[in-house]
Protein backbone atom coordinates (compact mmCIF):
# COMPACT_ATOMS: atom_id res chain seq x y z
CA UNK A 1 0.00 0.00 0.00
CA UNK A 2 0.86 3.62 -0.14
CA UNK A 3 3.33 5.34 2.19
CA UNK A 4 2.83 5.91 5.88
CA UNK A 5 1.51 9.43 5.52
CA UNK A 6 -1.62 8.22 3.79
CA UNK A 7 -4.49 9.56 5.80
CA UNK A 8 -7.28 7.65 4.13
CA UNK A 9 -10.20 6.63 6.25
CA UNK A 10 -10.75 2.98 7.02
CA UNK A 11 -11.18 0.76 3.97
CA UNK A 12 -14.06 -1.64 4.00
CA UNK A 13 -12.84 -4.00 1.32
CA UNK A 14 -9.91 -4.61 -0.93
CA UNK A 15 -11.55 -3.11 -4.01
CA UNK A 16 -12.55 0.20 -2.40
CA UNK A 17 -8.97 1.30 -1.80
CA UNK A 18 -7.64 1.33 -5.38
CA UNK A 19 -10.98 2.67 -6.58
CA UNK A 20 -10.99 5.64 -4.25
CA UNK A 21 -7.33 6.23 -5.12
CA UNK A 22 -8.16 6.32 -8.81
CA UNK A 23 -11.02 8.69 -8.11
CA UNK A 24 -8.67 11.03 -6.26
CA UNK A 25 -6.23 11.11 -9.18
CA UNK A 26 -9.07 11.58 -11.65
CA UNK A 27 -10.48 14.54 -9.71
CA UNK A 28 -7.04 16.10 -9.25
CA UNK A 29 -6.22 15.80 -12.93
CA UNK A 30 -9.59 17.16 -14.07
CA UNK A 31 -9.29 20.19 -11.79
CA UNK A 32 -5.72 20.74 -12.97
CA UNK A 33 -6.93 20.74 -16.58
CA UNK A 34 -9.70 23.20 -15.76
CA UNK A 35 -7.14 25.43 -14.06
CA UNK A 36 -4.93 25.31 -17.16
CA UNK A 37 -7.63 25.97 -19.80
CA UNK A 38 -7.46 29.79 -19.59
CA UNK A 39 -3.68 29.79 -20.04
CA UNK A 40 -3.95 27.36 -22.96
CA UNK A 41 -6.69 29.42 -24.63
CA UNK A 42 -4.65 32.59 -24.18
CA UNK A 43 -1.62 31.02 -25.85
CA UNK A 44 -3.43 29.43 -28.82
CA UNK A 45 -5.58 32.53 -29.46
CA UNK A 46 -2.51 34.75 -29.48
CA UNK A 47 -1.03 32.74 -32.36
CA UNK A 48 -4.16 32.42 -34.51
CA UNK A 49 -5.15 34.70 -37.36
CA UNK A 50 -8.56 36.39 -37.12
CA UNK A 51 -9.73 34.11 -39.93
CA UNK A 52 -8.85 31.06 -37.86
CA UNK A 53 -10.48 32.50 -34.74
CA UNK A 54 -13.73 32.87 -36.63
CA UNK A 55 -13.69 29.47 -38.34
CA UNK A 56 -12.15 27.26 -35.65
CA UNK A 57 -13.08 26.96 -31.99
CA UNK A 58 -11.64 28.44 -28.86
CA UNK A 59 -9.80 25.24 -28.06
CA UNK A 60 -8.43 24.27 -31.48
CA UNK A 61 -4.70 24.49 -32.07
CA UNK A 62 -3.46 27.21 -34.41
CA UNK A 63 -2.53 26.13 -37.94
CA UNK A 64 -0.06 28.88 -38.52
CA UNK A 65 2.05 30.62 -35.96
CA UNK A 66 1.64 34.30 -36.53
CA UNK A 67 3.95 36.62 -34.65
CA UNK A 68 2.64 39.81 -36.20
CA UNK A 69 -0.10 40.19 -33.54
CA UNK A 70 2.51 39.84 -30.85
CA UNK A 71 4.53 42.54 -32.55
CA UNK A 72 1.46 44.75 -32.87
CA UNK A 73 0.57 44.27 -29.19
CA UNK A 74 4.11 45.15 -28.20
CA UNK A 75 4.84 47.93 -30.63
CA UNK A 76 1.82 49.65 -32.14
CA UNK A 77 -1.48 48.78 -30.45
CA UNK A 78 -3.40 51.85 -29.32
CA UNK A 79 -3.56 52.48 -25.59
CA UNK A 80 -5.87 55.45 -25.78
CA UNK A 81 -4.56 58.38 -27.79
CA UNK A 82 -1.12 56.95 -28.31
CA UNK A 83 -0.43 53.91 -30.44
CA UNK A 84 2.94 52.72 -29.23
CA UNK A 85 1.91 49.34 -27.86
CA UNK A 86 2.73 47.77 -24.54
CA UNK A 87 6.46 48.43 -24.64
CA UNK A 88 5.95 51.78 -22.91
CA UNK A 89 4.01 50.09 -20.11
CA UNK A 90 6.62 47.37 -19.83
CA UNK A 91 9.34 49.92 -19.16
CA UNK A 92 7.07 51.78 -16.72
CA UNK A 93 6.20 48.58 -14.85
CA UNK A 94 9.91 47.86 -14.49
CA UNK A 95 10.68 51.39 -13.31
CA UNK A 96 7.86 51.11 -10.77
CA UNK A 97 8.37 47.53 -9.57
CA UNK A 98 12.12 47.41 -8.95
CA UNK A 99 12.48 50.47 -6.68
CA UNK A 100 9.14 49.77 -4.93
CA UNK A 101 10.15 46.21 -4.04
CA UNK A 102 13.66 47.19 -2.92
CA UNK A 103 12.39 50.08 -0.78
CA UNK A 104 9.50 48.09 0.69
CA UNK A 105 11.81 45.24 1.70
CA UNK A 106 14.47 47.57 3.11
CA UNK A 107 11.88 49.51 5.12
CA UNK A 108 10.06 46.36 6.22
CA UNK A 109 13.25 44.57 7.33
CA UNK A 110 14.57 47.55 9.29
CA UNK A 111 11.17 48.16 10.90
CA UNK A 112 10.75 44.48 11.73
CA UNK A 113 14.19 44.56 13.34
CA UNK A 114 13.45 47.62 15.45
CA UNK A 115 10.15 46.06 16.49
CA UNK A 116 11.48 42.68 17.52
CA UNK A 117 14.81 43.07 19.34
CA UNK A 118 14.39 46.46 20.93
CA UNK A 119 11.86 47.40 23.49
CA UNK A 120 10.81 50.74 22.14
CA UNK A 121 7.95 52.51 23.82
CA UNK A 122 4.67 52.37 21.86
CA UNK A 123 6.18 49.82 19.46
CA UNK A 124 3.28 47.46 20.00
CA UNK A 125 0.76 50.19 19.40
CA UNK A 126 2.53 51.04 16.17
CA UNK A 127 2.62 47.42 15.09
CA UNK A 128 -1.07 46.86 15.84
CA UNK A 129 -1.96 50.01 13.93
CA UNK A 130 0.03 48.74 10.95
CA UNK A 131 -1.62 45.34 11.08
CA UNK A 132 -5.08 46.85 11.08
CA UNK A 133 -3.98 49.26 8.35
CA UNK A 134 -3.02 46.26 6.23
CA UNK A 135 -6.68 45.30 6.16
CA UNK A 136 -7.94 48.65 4.93
CA UNK A 137 -9.45 48.54 1.47
CA UNK A 138 -7.24 50.49 -0.94
CA UNK A 139 -10.16 52.64 -2.02
CA UNK A 140 -10.36 54.14 1.47
CA UNK A 141 -6.73 55.28 1.37
CA UNK A 142 -6.60 56.38 -2.25
CA UNK A 143 -8.09 59.83 -1.80
CA UNK A 144 -6.01 60.78 1.26
CA UNK A 145 -2.95 59.57 -0.63
CA UNK A 146 -3.88 61.66 -3.65
CA UNK A 147 -4.00 64.72 -1.39
CA UNK A 148 -0.73 63.80 0.32
CA UNK A 149 1.16 63.13 -2.91
CA UNK A 150 -0.13 66.33 -4.52
CA UNK A 151 0.83 68.34 -1.44
CA UNK A 152 4.41 67.09 -1.61
CA UNK A 153 4.43 67.37 -5.41
CA UNK A 154 4.60 63.66 -6.20
CA UNK A 155 1.20 63.17 -7.81
CA UNK A 156 1.39 61.82 -11.37
CA UNK A 157 5.07 61.07 -11.04
CA UNK A 158 7.13 57.90 -10.88
CA UNK A 159 8.20 58.72 -7.32
CA UNK A 160 4.55 59.11 -6.35
CA UNK A 161 3.60 55.65 -7.62
CA UNK A 162 6.59 54.13 -5.82
CA UNK A 163 5.75 55.97 -2.61
CA UNK A 164 2.17 54.66 -2.62
CA UNK A 165 3.33 51.10 -3.35
CA UNK A 166 5.76 51.24 -0.44
CA UNK A 167 3.06 52.58 1.89
CA UNK A 168 0.71 49.76 0.89
CA UNK A 169 3.41 47.06 1.11
CA UNK A 170 4.84 48.20 4.43
CA UNK A 171 2.43 46.41 6.82
CA UNK A 172 2.73 42.98 5.22
CA UNK A 173 6.52 43.13 4.69
CA UNK A 174 7.07 44.34 8.25
CA UNK A 175 4.87 41.53 9.56
CA UNK A 176 6.90 38.96 7.59
CA UNK A 177 10.23 40.17 8.93
CA UNK A 178 9.03 40.68 12.46
CA UNK A 179 7.70 37.12 12.62
CA UNK A 180 10.90 35.80 11.06
CA UNK A 181 13.10 37.68 13.54
CA UNK A 182 10.91 36.48 16.39
CA UNK A 183 12.02 32.90 15.56
CA UNK A 184 15.69 33.81 15.99
CA UNK A 185 17.00 32.93 19.48
CA UNK A 186 17.41 35.94 21.73
CA UNK A 187 20.74 34.49 22.98
CA UNK A 188 22.28 35.24 19.61
CA UNK A 189 21.32 38.84 20.10
CA UNK A 190 22.66 38.89 23.66
CA UNK A 191 25.96 37.29 22.62
CA UNK A 192 26.41 39.85 19.87
CA UNK A 193 25.70 42.63 22.34
CA UNK A 194 28.31 41.26 24.75
CA UNK A 195 30.80 41.18 21.90
CA UNK A 196 30.09 44.83 21.35
CA UNK A 197 28.02 44.78 18.17
CA UNK A 198 26.10 48.01 17.85
CA UNK A 199 22.60 48.58 16.56
CA UNK A 200 23.37 48.57 12.82
CA UNK A 201 26.33 46.21 13.12
CA UNK A 202 24.09 43.44 14.50
CA UNK A 203 21.54 44.08 11.76
CA UNK A 204 23.93 44.11 8.80
CA UNK A 205 26.52 41.55 9.87
CA UNK A 206 24.39 38.96 11.64
CA UNK A 207 20.69 39.37 10.99
CA UNK A 208 20.69 40.26 7.30
CA UNK A 209 22.79 37.27 6.16
CA UNK A 210 20.41 35.00 8.10
CA UNK A 211 17.40 36.59 6.42
CA UNK A 212 18.13 35.66 2.81
CA UNK A 213 15.20 33.18 2.64
CA UNK A 214 12.80 35.77 4.00
CA UNK A 215 14.10 38.41 1.60
CA UNK A 216 13.50 35.97 -1.27
CA UNK A 217 9.96 35.18 -0.14
CA UNK A 218 9.01 38.82 0.42
CA UNK A 219 10.72 39.88 -2.82
CA UNK A 220 8.93 37.34 -4.99
CA UNK A 221 5.51 38.10 -3.53
CA UNK A 222 6.00 41.84 -3.81
CA UNK A 223 7.31 41.67 -7.39
CA UNK A 224 4.17 39.76 -8.32
CA UNK A 225 1.78 42.04 -6.45
CA UNK A 226 3.31 45.30 -7.63
CA UNK A 227 3.71 44.18 -11.23
CA UNK A 228 0.07 43.04 -11.21
CA UNK A 229 -1.25 46.18 -9.57
CA UNK A 230 -3.81 48.17 -11.49
CA UNK A 231 -5.41 50.73 -9.21
CA UNK A 232 -2.25 52.44 -7.88
CA UNK A 233 -0.81 52.76 -11.37
CA UNK A 234 -4.13 54.01 -12.73
CA UNK A 235 -4.62 56.72 -10.11
CA UNK A 236 -1.06 57.83 -9.35
CA UNK A 237 0.84 57.15 -12.57
CA UNK A 238 -1.07 59.53 -14.82
CA UNK A 239 -0.51 59.14 -18.55
CA UNK A 240 3.26 59.13 -18.43
CA UNK A 241 3.79 56.37 -15.89
CA UNK A 242 0.89 54.04 -16.65
CA UNK A 243 2.04 50.49 -15.89
CA UNK A 244 1.50 47.55 -18.22
CA UNK A 245 -1.80 46.46 -16.62
CA UNK A 246 -3.35 49.88 -17.22
CA UNK A 247 -2.15 49.95 -20.83
CA UNK A 248 -3.39 46.41 -21.40
CA UNK A 249 -6.85 47.31 -20.18
CA UNK A 250 -6.82 50.38 -22.43
CA UNK A 251 -5.77 48.34 -25.47
CA UNK A 252 -8.65 45.92 -24.99
CA UNK A 253 -11.31 48.46 -24.08
CA UNK A 254 -10.48 51.33 -26.42
CA UNK A 255 -10.62 49.44 -29.69
CA UNK A 256 -12.94 50.91 -32.25
CA UNK A 257 -14.25 48.81 -35.09
CA UNK A 258 -13.45 45.13 -35.23
CA UNK A 259 -11.88 43.70 -32.12
CA UNK A 260 -8.64 41.82 -32.71
CA UNK A 261 -8.81 38.97 -30.27
CA UNK A 262 -5.39 37.65 -31.18
CA UNK A 263 -3.74 41.00 -30.43
CA UNK A 264 -5.69 41.23 -27.18
CA UNK A 265 -4.56 37.80 -26.04
CA UNK A 266 -0.96 38.41 -27.11
CA UNK A 267 -1.03 41.62 -25.06
CA UNK A 268 -2.54 39.77 -22.10
CA UNK A 269 0.20 37.15 -22.24
CA UNK A 270 2.94 39.75 -22.58
CA UNK A 271 1.64 41.45 -19.44
CA UNK A 272 1.70 38.14 -17.56
CA UNK A 273 5.15 37.03 -18.68
CA UNK A 274 7.16 38.56 -15.84
CA UNK A 275 4.96 37.28 -12.96
CA UNK A 276 4.63 33.87 -14.64
CA UNK A 277 8.41 33.63 -15.11
CA UNK A 278 8.97 34.59 -11.48
CA UNK A 279 6.33 32.11 -10.39
CA UNK A 280 7.50 29.15 -12.45
CA UNK A 281 11.20 29.64 -11.67
CA UNK A 282 10.75 30.23 -7.95
CA UNK A 283 7.44 28.60 -7.18
CA UNK A 284 8.89 26.98 -4.09
CA UNK A 285 9.47 30.36 -2.41
CA UNK A 286 6.16 31.61 -3.64
CA UNK A 287 4.33 28.68 -2.05
CA UNK A 288 6.31 29.18 1.14
CA UNK A 289 5.32 32.81 1.31
CA UNK A 290 1.68 32.08 0.59
CA UNK A 291 1.55 29.19 3.06
CA UNK A 292 2.97 31.37 5.82
CA UNK A 293 0.03 33.68 5.31
CA UNK A 294 2.19 36.42 3.89
CA UNK A 295 -0.38 37.56 1.42
CA UNK A 296 -2.15 40.80 1.19
CA UNK A 297 -4.18 39.79 -1.85
Amino acid at each position, binding site marked *: MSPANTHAPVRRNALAAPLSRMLV*YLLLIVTAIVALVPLYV*MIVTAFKSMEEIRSGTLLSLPHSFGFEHWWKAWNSACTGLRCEGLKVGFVNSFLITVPSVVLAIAAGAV*TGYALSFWRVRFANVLFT*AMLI*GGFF*PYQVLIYPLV*RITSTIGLFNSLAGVIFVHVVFALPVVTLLFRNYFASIPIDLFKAARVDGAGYWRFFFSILLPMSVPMIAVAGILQVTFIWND*YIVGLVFGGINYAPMTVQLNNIVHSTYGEREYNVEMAATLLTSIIPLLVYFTSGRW*FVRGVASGA*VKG
Partner: protein
Amino acid sequence: MFVRSPSSSRLQAALTLAPVAFIVLSVYVGGVLWAAGISFTRSSMLPNYRFAGLTQYINLFSNARWQVSLCNMALFAAIFIPITLLIGYSIAAMINRGVRGENALRTIYLYPFAMSFIVTGLVWRWLLDPSFGIADVARKLGFENASFDWIVNADMAIFTIIIAAIWHSSGLVMVVLLAGLRGVDDDLWKAIRIEGIPAWKAHLYIIMPSIGASIATALVLMSLTVVRLFDVVVAMTGGGPGIATDVPAKFIIDHMFERQQVGLASAAATTLLLLVLAVAVPLLILKNRRK
Protein backbone atom coordinates in the same frame (compact mmCIF):
# COMPACT_ATOMS: atom_id res chain seq x y z
CA MET B 1 34.10 48.49 16.78
CA PHE B 2 32.99 51.24 19.01
CA VAL B 3 30.72 49.98 21.81
CA ARG B 4 27.48 51.79 22.26
CA SER B 5 25.50 51.81 25.45
CA PRO B 6 22.13 50.01 25.25
CA SER B 7 20.23 53.23 25.70
CA SER B 8 21.81 54.82 22.63
CA SER B 9 20.91 51.69 20.64
CA ARG B 10 17.38 51.84 21.90
CA LEU B 11 17.26 55.45 20.83
CA GLN B 12 18.39 54.34 17.40
CA ALA B 13 15.62 51.74 17.28
CA ALA B 14 13.15 54.48 18.11
CA LEU B 15 14.65 56.68 15.38
CA THR B 16 14.35 53.81 12.90
CA LEU B 17 10.68 53.52 13.69
CA ALA B 18 10.07 57.25 13.37
CA PRO B 19 9.55 57.39 9.57
CA VAL B 20 7.26 54.36 9.65
CA ALA B 21 5.34 55.81 12.59
CA PHE B 22 5.01 59.03 10.62
CA ILE B 23 3.61 57.16 7.60
CA VAL B 24 1.21 55.14 9.74
CA LEU B 25 0.00 58.25 11.54
CA SER B 26 -0.33 60.41 8.45
CA VAL B 27 -1.75 57.87 6.00
CA TYR B 28 -3.40 55.04 7.89
CA VAL B 29 -4.72 57.08 10.81
CA GLY B 30 -4.76 60.70 9.63
CA GLY B 31 -5.78 59.96 6.07
CA VAL B 32 -8.63 57.71 7.04
CA LEU B 33 -9.93 60.10 9.68
CA TRP B 34 -9.69 62.94 7.20
CA ALA B 35 -11.62 60.95 4.60
CA ALA B 36 -14.23 60.09 7.22
CA GLY B 37 -14.47 63.80 8.09
CA ILE B 38 -14.93 64.73 4.42
CA SER B 39 -17.92 62.39 4.28
CA PHE B 40 -19.76 64.76 6.66
CA THR B 41 -19.21 67.82 4.46
CA ARG B 42 -20.68 69.16 1.24
CA SER B 43 -17.49 68.40 -0.72
CA SER B 44 -18.11 67.81 -4.39
CA MET B 45 -15.27 68.45 -6.85
CA LEU B 46 -12.77 69.51 -4.21
CA PRO B 47 -12.95 68.91 -0.50
CA ASN B 48 -14.47 71.71 1.53
CA TYR B 49 -15.37 71.89 5.16
CA ARG B 50 -19.00 72.99 5.17
CA PHE B 51 -20.69 70.63 7.56
CA ALA B 52 -23.53 68.65 6.02
CA GLY B 53 -24.39 66.17 8.71
CA LEU B 54 -25.47 62.85 7.33
CA THR B 55 -26.60 64.24 3.96
CA GLN B 56 -23.93 62.33 2.01
CA TYR B 57 -24.87 59.09 3.74
CA ILE B 58 -28.57 59.62 3.06
CA ASN B 59 -27.79 60.33 -0.58
CA LEU B 60 -25.50 57.33 -0.70
CA PHE B 61 -28.00 54.82 0.58
CA SER B 62 -30.74 56.14 -1.67
CA ASN B 63 -28.41 55.91 -4.65
CA ALA B 64 -29.47 52.99 -6.88
CA ARG B 65 -25.92 52.38 -8.04
CA TRP B 66 -24.67 52.05 -4.47
CA GLN B 67 -27.50 49.68 -3.63
CA VAL B 68 -26.65 47.51 -6.62
CA SER B 69 -22.95 47.63 -5.67
CA LEU B 70 -23.62 46.49 -2.12
CA CYS B 71 -25.97 43.71 -3.25
CA ASN B 72 -23.36 42.54 -5.75
CA MET B 73 -20.69 42.46 -3.09
CA ALA B 74 -22.94 40.48 -0.75
CA LEU B 75 -23.89 38.04 -3.51
CA PHE B 76 -20.26 37.73 -4.55
CA ALA B 77 -19.19 36.98 -0.97
CA ALA B 78 -22.04 34.52 -0.41
CA ILE B 79 -21.06 32.44 -3.44
CA PHE B 80 -17.34 33.06 -3.88
CA ILE B 81 -16.27 32.34 -0.29
CA PRO B 82 -18.02 28.98 0.30
CA ILE B 83 -17.25 27.60 -3.17
CA THR B 84 -13.60 28.63 -3.11
CA LEU B 85 -13.27 27.20 0.39
CA LEU B 86 -14.92 23.95 -0.69
CA ILE B 87 -12.72 23.58 -3.80
CA GLY B 88 -9.57 24.59 -1.93
CA TYR B 89 -10.27 22.26 0.97
CA SER B 90 -11.20 19.31 -1.24
CA ILE B 91 -8.04 19.59 -3.31
CA ALA B 92 -5.89 20.10 -0.21
CA ALA B 93 -7.44 17.05 1.47
CA MET B 94 -6.83 14.92 -1.63
CA ILE B 95 -3.22 16.08 -1.99
CA ASN B 96 -2.67 15.53 1.71
CA ARG B 97 -3.38 11.81 1.27
CA GLY B 98 -0.04 11.61 -0.45
CA VAL B 99 -0.16 11.65 -4.23
CA ARG B 100 2.48 11.44 -6.90
CA GLY B 101 3.38 14.64 -8.68
CA GLU B 102 2.32 16.80 -5.77
CA ASN B 103 4.69 19.63 -6.69
CA ALA B 104 3.53 19.75 -10.30
CA LEU B 105 -0.13 19.74 -9.25
CA ARG B 106 0.42 22.47 -6.68
CA THR B 107 2.25 24.60 -9.23
CA ILE B 108 -0.68 24.26 -11.63
CA TYR B 109 -3.34 25.05 -9.04
CA LEU B 110 -1.56 28.13 -7.72
CA TYR B 111 -0.43 29.75 -10.99
CA PRO B 112 -3.68 31.76 -11.49
CA PHE B 113 -2.84 33.64 -8.31
CA ALA B 114 0.37 34.89 -9.93
CA MET B 115 -1.67 36.53 -12.70
CA SER B 116 -3.15 39.97 -12.28
CA PHE B 117 -6.87 40.46 -11.88
CA ILE B 118 -6.85 42.52 -15.09
CA VAL B 119 -5.43 39.54 -16.98
CA THR B 120 -7.89 37.21 -15.22
CA GLY B 121 -10.81 39.39 -16.24
CA LEU B 122 -9.69 39.72 -19.86
CA VAL B 123 -9.10 35.99 -20.27
CA TRP B 124 -12.45 35.05 -18.81
CA ARG B 125 -14.16 37.70 -20.88
CA TRP B 126 -12.73 35.95 -23.93
CA LEU B 127 -13.60 32.46 -22.66
CA LEU B 128 -17.20 33.46 -21.95
CA ASP B 129 -17.65 35.51 -25.10
CA PRO B 130 -21.16 34.64 -26.39
CA SER B 131 -20.06 34.34 -30.05
CA PHE B 132 -16.52 32.92 -29.87
CA GLY B 133 -16.20 31.49 -26.37
CA ILE B 134 -17.16 28.25 -24.70
CA ALA B 135 -20.68 28.49 -26.15
CA ASP B 136 -19.14 28.38 -29.64
CA VAL B 137 -17.17 25.24 -28.74
CA ALA B 138 -20.43 23.56 -27.69
CA ARG B 139 -22.16 24.68 -30.90
CA LYS B 140 -19.37 23.33 -33.09
CA LEU B 141 -19.44 20.06 -31.15
CA GLY B 142 -22.99 19.55 -32.34
CA PHE B 143 -25.10 21.28 -29.71
CA GLU B 144 -26.39 23.74 -32.26
CA ASN B 145 -28.63 25.67 -29.94
CA ALA B 146 -26.04 26.07 -27.20
CA SER B 147 -25.80 29.60 -25.95
CA PHE B 148 -24.07 31.11 -22.99
CA ASP B 149 -24.56 34.84 -22.80
CA TRP B 150 -24.23 35.45 -19.06
CA ILE B 151 -21.51 38.03 -19.54
CA VAL B 152 -23.82 40.33 -21.51
CA ASN B 153 -26.93 39.45 -19.52
CA ALA B 154 -27.66 41.94 -16.77
CA ASP B 155 -29.09 39.29 -14.45
CA MET B 156 -26.26 36.80 -14.86
CA ALA B 157 -23.12 38.90 -15.51
CA ILE B 158 -22.12 39.01 -11.83
CA PHE B 159 -21.84 35.21 -11.87
CA THR B 160 -19.23 35.34 -14.62
CA ILE B 161 -17.13 37.57 -12.36
CA ILE B 162 -17.58 35.08 -9.53
CA ILE B 163 -16.38 32.25 -11.81
CA ALA B 164 -13.24 34.19 -12.76
CA ALA B 165 -12.52 35.03 -9.12
CA ILE B 166 -12.95 31.41 -8.02
CA TRP B 167 -10.45 30.37 -10.70
CA HIS B 168 -8.02 33.02 -9.45
CA SER B 169 -8.24 32.21 -5.73
CA SER B 170 -8.88 28.46 -5.33
CA GLY B 171 -5.20 27.56 -5.56
CA LEU B 172 -4.28 30.14 -2.94
CA VAL B 173 -6.87 28.79 -0.50
CA MET B 174 -5.70 25.25 -1.26
CA VAL B 175 -2.06 26.08 -0.40
CA VAL B 176 -3.04 27.83 2.85
CA LEU B 177 -5.26 24.91 3.94
CA LEU B 178 -2.71 22.29 2.87
CA ALA B 179 -0.17 23.95 5.15
CA GLY B 180 -2.72 23.61 7.95
CA LEU B 181 -3.49 19.97 7.14
CA ARG B 182 0.22 19.14 7.19
CA GLY B 183 0.25 20.26 10.81
CA VAL B 184 -2.50 17.89 11.91
CA ASP B 185 -1.19 15.28 14.33
CA ASP B 186 -0.81 11.77 12.89
CA ASP B 187 -2.41 10.33 16.03
CA LEU B 188 -5.62 12.14 15.20
CA TRP B 189 -5.76 10.41 11.82
CA LYS B 190 -5.02 7.08 13.47
CA ALA B 191 -7.82 7.60 15.98
CA ILE B 192 -10.23 8.45 13.17
CA ARG B 193 -9.22 5.31 11.30
CA ILE B 194 -9.54 3.08 14.35
CA GLU B 195 -12.94 4.51 15.23
CA GLY B 196 -14.05 4.00 11.65
CA ILE B 197 -15.52 7.49 11.34
CA PRO B 198 -16.77 8.19 7.79
CA ALA B 199 -14.44 10.48 5.81
CA TRP B 200 -16.86 13.39 5.40
CA LYS B 201 -17.74 13.38 9.09
CA ALA B 202 -14.10 13.24 10.12
CA HIS B 203 -13.27 16.21 7.89
CA LEU B 204 -16.23 18.31 8.92
CA TYR B 205 -16.23 17.71 12.67
CA ILE B 206 -12.64 16.82 13.53
CA ILE B 207 -10.12 17.97 10.94
CA MET B 208 -11.66 21.32 9.95
CA PRO B 209 -11.98 22.57 13.54
CA SER B 210 -8.39 21.52 14.25
CA ILE B 211 -7.06 23.71 11.42
CA GLY B 212 -9.11 26.73 12.49
CA ALA B 213 -6.16 29.11 12.18
CA SER B 214 -5.56 28.18 8.54
CA ILE B 215 -9.25 28.47 7.75
CA ALA B 216 -9.30 31.89 9.40
CA THR B 217 -6.31 32.95 7.23
CA ALA B 218 -8.10 31.73 4.12
CA LEU B 219 -11.27 33.58 5.15
CA VAL B 220 -9.31 36.80 5.73
CA LEU B 221 -7.66 36.52 2.31
CA MET B 222 -10.97 35.84 0.59
CA SER B 223 -12.71 38.70 2.43
CA LEU B 224 -9.95 41.05 1.25
CA THR B 225 -10.58 39.88 -2.31
CA VAL B 226 -14.28 40.62 -1.84
CA VAL B 227 -13.91 44.20 -0.60
CA ARG B 228 -11.11 45.06 -3.01
CA LEU B 229 -12.99 43.64 -5.99
CA PHE B 230 -12.28 46.19 -8.69
CA ASP B 231 -9.75 45.23 -11.38
CA VAL B 232 -11.52 42.08 -12.49
CA VAL B 233 -14.82 43.93 -12.87
CA VAL B 234 -13.17 46.74 -14.83
CA ALA B 235 -11.51 44.24 -17.17
CA MET B 236 -14.43 41.88 -17.60
CA THR B 237 -17.58 43.93 -17.79
CA GLY B 238 -16.63 47.52 -16.92
CA GLY B 239 -19.44 47.33 -14.36
CA GLY B 240 -21.99 46.58 -17.07
CA PRO B 241 -24.26 45.76 -18.71
CA GLY B 242 -25.53 49.08 -17.37
CA ILE B 243 -24.68 49.02 -13.68
CA ALA B 244 -25.41 45.31 -13.29
CA THR B 245 -21.93 44.33 -12.09
CA ASP B 246 -21.00 47.47 -10.21
CA VAL B 247 -19.11 46.95 -6.94
CA PRO B 248 -18.36 49.33 -4.02
CA ALA B 249 -14.71 49.83 -4.99
CA LYS B 250 -15.71 50.85 -8.50
CA PHE B 251 -18.44 53.11 -7.18
CA ILE B 252 -15.91 54.88 -4.96
CA ILE B 253 -13.24 55.33 -7.63
CA ASP B 254 -15.75 56.52 -10.26
CA HIS B 255 -17.35 59.06 -7.94
CA MET B 256 -14.01 60.30 -6.69
CA PHE B 257 -12.39 60.90 -10.05
CA GLU B 258 -14.83 60.84 -12.94
CA ARG B 259 -17.95 62.20 -11.31
CA GLN B 260 -16.08 64.39 -8.84
CA GLN B 261 -18.36 63.79 -5.90
CA VAL B 262 -15.71 63.52 -3.26
CA GLY B 263 -18.11 63.75 -0.32
CA LEU B 264 -20.31 60.94 -1.59
CA ALA B 265 -17.28 58.79 -2.45
CA SER B 266 -15.83 59.36 1.02
CA ALA B 267 -19.12 58.36 2.62
CA ALA B 268 -19.03 55.16 0.55
CA ALA B 269 -15.37 54.53 1.48
CA THR B 270 -16.07 55.07 5.17
CA THR B 271 -19.04 52.70 5.04
CA LEU B 272 -16.88 50.10 3.34
CA LEU B 273 -14.14 50.52 5.93
CA LEU B 274 -16.60 49.98 8.78
CA LEU B 275 -17.84 46.83 7.05
CA VAL B 276 -14.28 45.56 6.67
CA LEU B 277 -13.43 46.21 10.30
CA ALA B 278 -16.64 44.50 11.41
CA VAL B 279 -15.55 41.36 9.55
CA ALA B 280 -11.75 41.48 9.95
CA VAL B 281 -11.41 42.29 13.64
CA PRO B 282 -13.35 39.24 14.92
CA LEU B 283 -11.49 37.02 12.42
CA LEU B 284 -8.13 38.38 13.59
CA ILE B 285 -9.05 37.77 17.22
CA LEU B 286 -10.21 34.25 16.35
CA LYS B 287 -7.00 33.57 14.47
CA ASN B 288 -4.73 34.75 17.26
CA ARG B 289 -6.69 32.83 19.86
CA ARG B 290 -6.38 29.59 17.87
CA LYS B 291 -2.63 30.03 17.68
